[in-house]
């Protein structure tokens, strides 16, 4: 069952409790952080408006990072984009392909929110959600979260007439459904992020970078293969088998 977060940016007051809960709950080492609070104030004194962007992985259903990941370190599960760090080869394709500029390279490996896989598997909620004093975060079944997001956007119109839901359809639907106080463009978000088709990912990112590594065809095959067969990095090195899987064309586990 696809899970999702709701992130109500109208309600967020930038207190950073989520960032520290994530940091401490996941015991992230120094230099690693999955959530960044970014001030977003527009206008000139004294005509100002704005708030905070809670910058984090939005868990795209059609995740460009998953599409380009040659090792299967990034994969989709329960609607969320997981990251198996030990499997990361450090190629940085995810960094350059992300439409929301999220993954960061730390010590040669991709880092980003994995939706608190370990914690939720253990029966808890994601750390950021359970601590948020502003109750700007929720987590649950995606269809339910979509409903919640719509209700929140409606409530937000008391203060922000243009409040709206973002992420219902973008990138195949986001696993972090945003409740925005204003139009996405105003907040620096693409109304329609570039669709991360295998073709343009391959042409734009994988091909130029990968030539000279293990061969363009092999990687192209690997891209599609991994999409269908997450987390099988050993098999990925078997080029022949990977090539067979190119034809499967199943681009989303959780569609």
């Amino acid at each position, binding site marked *: 069952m696809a899970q999702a977060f709701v992130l109500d940016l109208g*309600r967020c*007051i*930038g*207190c*950073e*409790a989520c*960032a*520290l*809960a994530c*940091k*401490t*709950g*996941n*015991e*992230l*080492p*120094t*230099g*690693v*952080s999955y959530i960044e609070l970014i001030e977003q*104030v527009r*206008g*000139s*004194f*004294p005509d*100002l*408006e*704005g*708030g*905070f962007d809670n910058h984090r992985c939005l868990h795209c259903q059609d995740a460009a990072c998953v599409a380009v990941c040659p090792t299967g370190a990034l994969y989709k599960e329960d609607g969320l984009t997981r*990251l*198996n*760090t*030990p499997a990361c080869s450090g190629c940085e394709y995810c960094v350059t392909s992300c439409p929301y500029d999220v993954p960061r390279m730390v010590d040669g490996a991709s*880092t980003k929110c*994995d939706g608190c*896989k*370990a*914690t939720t*598997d*253990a*029966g*808890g*909620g994601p*750390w950021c*959600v*359970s*601590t*948020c*004093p*502003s*109750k*700007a975060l929720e987590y649950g079944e995606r269809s339910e979260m979509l409903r919640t997001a719509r209700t929140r956007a409606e*409530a*937000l119109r*008391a*203060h922000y007439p243009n409040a709206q839901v973002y992420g219902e359809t973008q990138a195949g639907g986001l696993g972090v459904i945003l409740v925005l106080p204003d139009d996405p463009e105003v907040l620096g978000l693409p109304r329609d992020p570039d669709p991360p088709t295998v073709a343009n990912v391959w042409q734009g990112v994988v091909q130029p970078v990968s030539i000279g590594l293990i061969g363009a065809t092999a990687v192209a095959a690997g891209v599609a293969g991994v999409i269908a067969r997450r987390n099988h990095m050993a098999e990925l090195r078997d080029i022949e088998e990977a090539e067979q899987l190119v034809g499967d064309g199943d681009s989303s586990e959780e569609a």
Partner: protein
Amino acid sequence: MSLVDLEISRRTFFTAGAATMAAAGLLPRAAHAATDGTPWYRQGAIETTFGVCDMCPWRCGIVVSSVNGEVRKIDGNPADPKSRGMLCARGQGGVSFMNDPDRLQAPMMRSGKRGEGSFEEVSWEQALDFIADKLLEIKERSGPEALAIFGHTSGEYWFTDHFSQAWGTPNAAKPSSSLCLSPREEAAQLTLGMGVGGHEPVDWDGLRCLTLIGSHIGEDTRNTVMQDFADMWGDGGKVIVVDPRFSSVATKADHWLPIKPGTDTALLLAWLNVLVTEELYDADYVRGWTTGFDRLAAHVADKSPAWAASITDLSEGQIIETARVMAERKPQSVIMPGRHVTWYGNDTQRLRATYLVNALLGAYGRRGGMYFNKAPYLEEYPHPPYAVAGSAGGCSAGAAETSDELPLGPSGKARADGARETFLRGATALQELIDPMITGDPYRIEGLIVYGTNLLNSVPNKPRTREALAALDLVVAIDVLPQEHVAWADVVLPESTYLERYDTLWSVSHKTPYIAMREPAVAPMYQTRPAWWMARELGLRVGLDAYFGWETIEEYLDRELRSVGSSLDEMRANDGIIIQNGKPYLEDYDGASPFHTPSEKIELFSQQLADAGFDPIPEYESTPEPPRGFYRLLYGRHPVHTFAKTQNTPALNERYPTNEVWINAQAAASEGIRDGQEVWLENQDGARSGPIAVKATERIRSDAVFMPHGFGQNAPGLTRAHGKGASDTELQTDYALDPISGGAGMRINFVKIVTEV
């Protein structure tokens, strides 16, 4: 459901057994967890203990999770009325605070000159015997009043309240009084006959209009306030923010009033004028529960919005409109009493003006307005009468009630802080005890015990504080970290953090009075000891045995809990919290008055102030403006830091390692200063601090600059915080004494930007 809920409701769930993990079907791999990838809660049985957070003075109830004897995670206690299961960034940083390798680890005695920071480790026996001998010498020579005790953070009770009163010094002081809340508390005593107390009694549930004057919800990240604010705002409540700066909470405001600093009282008087002249006040409430309305009405008749507009730099229309917005939602409409209200020296009158607005809106004791808080019933562990009454005030347990009587010490000496002479009333003024250490006027303070407090990063006029520290005969510093003033101590006592100790029961004045417990999650690290242990050991050495009649802290706590029919074990079984019934509303008093003023009413006109020679109704007094080329220095909080206490905490330091100075973008441009440039700040007296990066922003007026407090620290032992950013305290060489409450107004300092050293 969070993991902590699970921990509490199903404590066996996370036992270490392989069977449990096998039953769960997996051993999941966290992205970045322990070296082998196993998350902390899968590395062994989780032991949960209850505590009270000490990462800020708000004191949320917490649940601490430890695995294999190590604290791994702190969460809000779902049963606690303040945290309700959530926790702010600083609270989350508690594990990191405890594990800071820069902590004080062993008792030390000075081996070089004061201030040099040369120490040698000694045993607890040596340290305590030395202090006891010195204390007895001082008492013999000059009386117990010659010892001052300063305290701040949650163990302060043991020294600043209990030990000081048993010993017999009226010179016990807390920065949370005269450097923070005194004007607010005295204004409330004078006007309402009650203190505001540690937890501002805004009745959020039902509130429809919130007005903030210089309160920074979201930057000041008091957990409960953020929760309540979000709910109130989320339900469509109106928010009016008066601030020279477009603060985090101003981004949520329906009305932001970028007022000229120092002119708030003019705005408040104009709001009163609108409420009176447009008859927007709650007439029945005013008739029933207030006195002096006619005199107030006459007083504000000429305080028109046009008059205030010319003073405040706001528009007449804004002032009128916001008064109407407030009044339309009365009595579910309040101006929230701020925190840290010592700004310009006339602060008690400003706070009184805010209470007068609330009174005209009929807010006190009304649902959705301001409730009456109540302290929980709890008997103290029996002890003989104290040698002197307490007057340290503070923001800890209970409302900070202060008596009109000035306590006298056993040798007949009253407080040395000038109370009754340089200021009228209220809690001991910490900053006013510094001069007597140097001048001996009215008598010499010879010894000082500093518990926490961070003396050189909280008290204005640092050069004077250093001079005093050099002049004292005895300086004892009790702390967790080697803060700057610790270098000036003769003896340094290392304290256990709040995660390693029992403490007094946390008894909280609240809508629902409650008691919370703190128990150790782990044994004290290094050679550290809790404050209760130190106070008792010292007490036993100086003849105060009768005040420390218990053998173990568990016995002490159990005895106190017996007075409410409970025990430590029972509290543990009940999520660490005991909740009692409050009397929050007027109707709970059966027609009797909850207002303990001489008139038993809200005193719009204060005869007490008139009798003492002060304005009985607040007047606007101007404050000096910045000289040409200077800006007014404003300061505040960053959401992940508390005071100057957390800048060295690894996890919090990583998040925000240094501060920046906000300068209006146009003002910066006209000075040729660019965003991000490193500059120094120099104040009106030539004091400098920096380098600090410029944040050129539209979010502040052009006549003031702003910086988060607590940076620019000089203590070399704070390896992460040392030398990072600029210190507002360094630049506060001057302050204005509030003649009513003794508060130290610190926003009267001005700085210029210096681009080259």
